[in-house]
């Protein structure tokens, strides 16, 4: 059902936690299944220096949060804004069809956090 990459990220999620003095915080809740992701960013010179997440959700939700965090750490905000949910799923070698629309929210949550950072601007 889940790819090896999903299982790996689910079992050993990278970057779990909070950043107390985050520069940007964002979250996203899935309307269909209630999955919830909360993203904390540390930004410096337009680059994501640190990222942490908290996720309430199934294996796909946790794995995509973890994968997203790995994909964007060290990237510019511009690069991070270009990341889509589908990119995250692809990096995980795919997600089962029923999960694509309910648990695959990590890029959206990230964009919320970036927006929050920029709004503070």
């Amino acid at each position, binding site marked *: 059902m889940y790819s090896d990459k999903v299982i790996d990220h*689910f*079992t050993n999620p990278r970057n*779990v936690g909070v950043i107390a003095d985050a520069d940007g915080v964002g979250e996203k809740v899935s309307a269909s*299944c*209630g999955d919830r992701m909360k993203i904390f960013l540390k930004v410096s010179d337009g680059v994501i220096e640190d990222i942490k997440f908290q996720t*309430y*959700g*199934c294996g796909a939700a946790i794995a995509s949060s973890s994968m997203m965090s790995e994909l964007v750490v060290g990237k510019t905000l511009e690069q991070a804004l270009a990341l889509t949910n589908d990119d995250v799923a692809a990096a995980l070698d795919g997600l*089962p069809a029923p999960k694509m629309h309910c648990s695959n929210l990590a890029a959206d949550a990230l964009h919320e956090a970036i927006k929050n950072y920029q709004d503070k601007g």
Partner: protein
Amino acid sequence: MKRIYLDNNATTAVRTEVLEAMLPFYREQFGNPSSIHWAGRSVSEAVEEARERVARLLNARPEEIVFTSCGSESNSLALRGSVDFFEARDRHVITTAVEHPAVLNSVRFLEKQGVAVTVLPVDGDGLVDLEQLEVAIRPDTILISAMWGNNETGTLFPVAEIGAIARRHKIRFHTDAVQAIGRVPVDVQAAEVDLLSLSGHKFGAPKGVGALYVRKGTGLTPLIHGGHQERGRRAGTLNVPGIVGLGVASELATADLDRQVPRIRALRDRLEAGILSRISEVRVNGHRQQRLPNTLNVSFAYIEGEAILLFLDMQGVAASSGSACMSDSFGNSHVIDAMGVDPMMANSSIRFGLGPDTDEEDIDFVLEILPPIIKKLRDMSPFYSEKAAG
């Protein structure tokens, strides 16, 4: 890695004795039981012997047993077959909010076809209110369908009392006993049942065979039309090996009630007590006493069920979750919802279904690995950290 199977409400392994009894019917006694020649005759005897065994399990008569392919077919036949039988009149059907989808989706389909439907709510333990049932009965009510034991929580309905109400009002009573067979005594006379569904693979017979008990005199229009098999109530060449297996499993099921069930119940209670003492903010779903002895459904606040399930699975433990989008057998739990459980709690429900192969070591292993799994997931959960923050 040791594999611990705690999903016996989803399906069970075929018992050794059952499989052995089935084997001669694939290549040696392979005839069609409807045939009158040598190849059919001995096979038809084996089918009738199995019918007697299933009847004995339920305290019914052999001619009241209709073999089907699964519990869903039995339920669909009971509901649609009754409604079609009464086609000439107004029809109202009463059921409950916690029935299996085979009943609820049949009822929804019938509703679209113009049948009036009442779906009774349940309380926090998953029980129906018998007074509400009485009030729901109308002059055109033709059927009450209420399950014997719930597949998600294990809650047992007071079937004998429901049966008595149905009898008093001269309404036919169908009960889905798919989960009850082999776990609690099931007696169609004591419970005054007219139609009862069972499914082989839930108690040691193979997948692909089930039965519907049809009380003598209870008219039913077939769902599957064709030849005269099953006295015109269900056409199609009989699944002989499956039926033979169902017969043997039925015999074992009766014996198990004394031999296995007390042991399984004690293990289930040990699991429940262990979880409650080791993990905080836990809710047991279902009635604590009136419950299938092998079933424990428990919710863990702040986290999601499928994630728990996956971590258990990685350590060899197979259980079931009410929230796994992809798990057909459980579905998004309309049962826990109907009990008024907070949606987040409902989303974290895990069902452990013990079976004859479960032993103390299995339970203790689960009690060892479960607390760190819950902790790990809670540590990841925004809800948990917000709550901790105040």
